[in-house]
């Protein structure tokens, strides 16, 4: 499912009535089954861009289309979100959380149960179907959030710093596991991240946004085939791209030059 952003601009209005541009001049095309990571300085509009892709936020100008159809409101069958802080509903058990999107779509209880169970098996949590989120670790909760998104069978998965709240070790293990699952399920993924390693490890293509107002400063292609094993982190390609990202994000003149 191809996603396209044309001349996208988002401007916020402050309580005092001042206009603050968050994103400007975003032109981007994401191909079917492509894995794109978005990285940039804090406050550059990464999450805002993701919300526009998913229809959670209307751009001030420009448009987002999926297969030529304009995105005006959320549609989890088209693009499903995975949020940073899991956002599982604490009063629903793991199975009901995994199937909550189907439940909201008015599907039957039996279908929700069957599909929810399948998705929990996919993320390796079938044994925990009847437990509540508070009884799971952060990594497990995030996998339930991934199961919830996958249950909708979306064409595009929109992940907003999905591993940001996890410790480094869990992040790496879960990242590797999720990388395999997402590659096997063959869908387009757009993932916002703060982590240079994550940005390189996961992506077919990395979009680097400049500081606010966010604009695309650079696009970097990662040629190594997916799914990648953790040994990819030790390769020259990984090191070179990581160094390039580091330079863009940490050296203001490099970012300014790339943005021109």
């Amino acid at each position, binding site marked *: 499912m191809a996603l396209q952003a044309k001349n996208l601009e988002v401007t916020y209005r402050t309580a005092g009535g001042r206009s603050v541009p968050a994103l400007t001049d975003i032109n981007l095309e994401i191909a079917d089954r492509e894995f794109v990571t978005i990285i940039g300085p804090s406050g550059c509009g990464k999450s805002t861009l993701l919300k526009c892709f*998913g229809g*959670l936020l209307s751009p001030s100008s420009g448009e987002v289309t999926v297969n030529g159809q304009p995105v005006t*409101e*959320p*549609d*989890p069958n088209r693009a*499903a*979100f995975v*949020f940073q*802080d899991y*956002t599982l*509903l*604490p*009063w*629903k*058990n793991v199975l009901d959380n995994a199937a*909550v*999107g189907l*439940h*909201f*779509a008015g599907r039957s209880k039996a279908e929700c149960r069957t599909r929810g169970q399948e998705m929990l098996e996919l993320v*390796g*949590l079938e*044994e*925990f*179907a*009847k*437990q*509540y*989120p*508070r*009884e*799971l*670790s952060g*990594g*497990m909760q995030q996998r339930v959030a991934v199961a*919830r998104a996958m249950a*909708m069978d979306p064409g595009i998965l929109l992940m907003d710093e999905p591993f940001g709240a996890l410790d480094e070790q*869990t992040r790496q*293990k*879960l990242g*590797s*596991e999720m990388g395999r699952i997402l590659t096997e399920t063959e869908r387009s993924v757009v993932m916002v991240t703060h982590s240079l390693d994550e940005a390189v490890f996961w992506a077919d293509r990395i979009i680097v946004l400049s500081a606010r107002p966010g604009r695309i400063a650079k696009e970097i292609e990662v040629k190594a085939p997916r799914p990648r094993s953790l040994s990819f982190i030790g390769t020259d390609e990984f090191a070179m791209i990581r160094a390039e990202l580091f330079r863009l994000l940490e050296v203001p003149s490099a970012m300014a030059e790339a943005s021109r």
Partner: protein
Amino acid sequence: MTALLEVVQAQPAGKNVRRRRPSQSAHRWVLLGVVIALLVIWEILSRLEWVNPMFVSRPTDIFAAIPDVLGDEKAVDALTTTGTSIWWAIVYAVIIGIVGGYLLGSVQLLRDAFYGPVNFIIGIPKSIFIPIFLLVFGINTQTAIYYGAFSGIFYVMINVVGGLDLVEERHMMVARAYSASWWYRVRDIVLPASTPGVFAGIWYGIKNGLQGVLIFELFISVGGLGSLIKTYTNRLEIDRVFVVVLGVAVISIVLGEIWSAIERRLSRWRPSSTANADTGA
């Protein structure tokens, strides 16, 4: 492999058996001991006439009066009257309070207009409204129900509003991201998220509804336990007064325990699934 590594923090369903700590049972025996000791001291002071037994009956006299009160037809009638009044006062307080609380909490205009007055009413003694209730509804048991409901409604409302403030924006965003309709948002997000406030509100509704009915019966002789207390007091049958007071305390404790059990059952998802309302029971 990842699943196995993370499983350490969780246990499969059904293995979460809660065991009673040994100190818990010891704690109960200590409490019982304290109560018995207080009763013994009370009895001794009364027998030594350090307190006047005419105004403060001895515990032994009070226990001896229990069969008399239970055999008194008037007492049984009063218990039935008060029980029925309390039940309806609680039902009205809880239903009106919850509906009113949700309206107040979700419509900003209503909140701006009425949140202050509701807080004001909570802050003043409700008994000053008894004459108005008498004027409007007359001297009868139905008025006790209305006054009991009035005593509880505002506490329910204010707690429900507090519960609505617990609804988290991130959960509402999930609902939007997954295209939940208005009805699903209310049923699956707003109602469950606000349950801590609603549960606390229901408990305050029970407590204040009960108090309201009894206070009304004490002030106005419309029958019921409140009036019975007044009758026994006028006759200086203080042992019987204490029996009725004991009965009211038992009703209050039983209601509190029933509600705590219901709340525990409905709150299993919360980090601490023990009753959070201040049941005071």
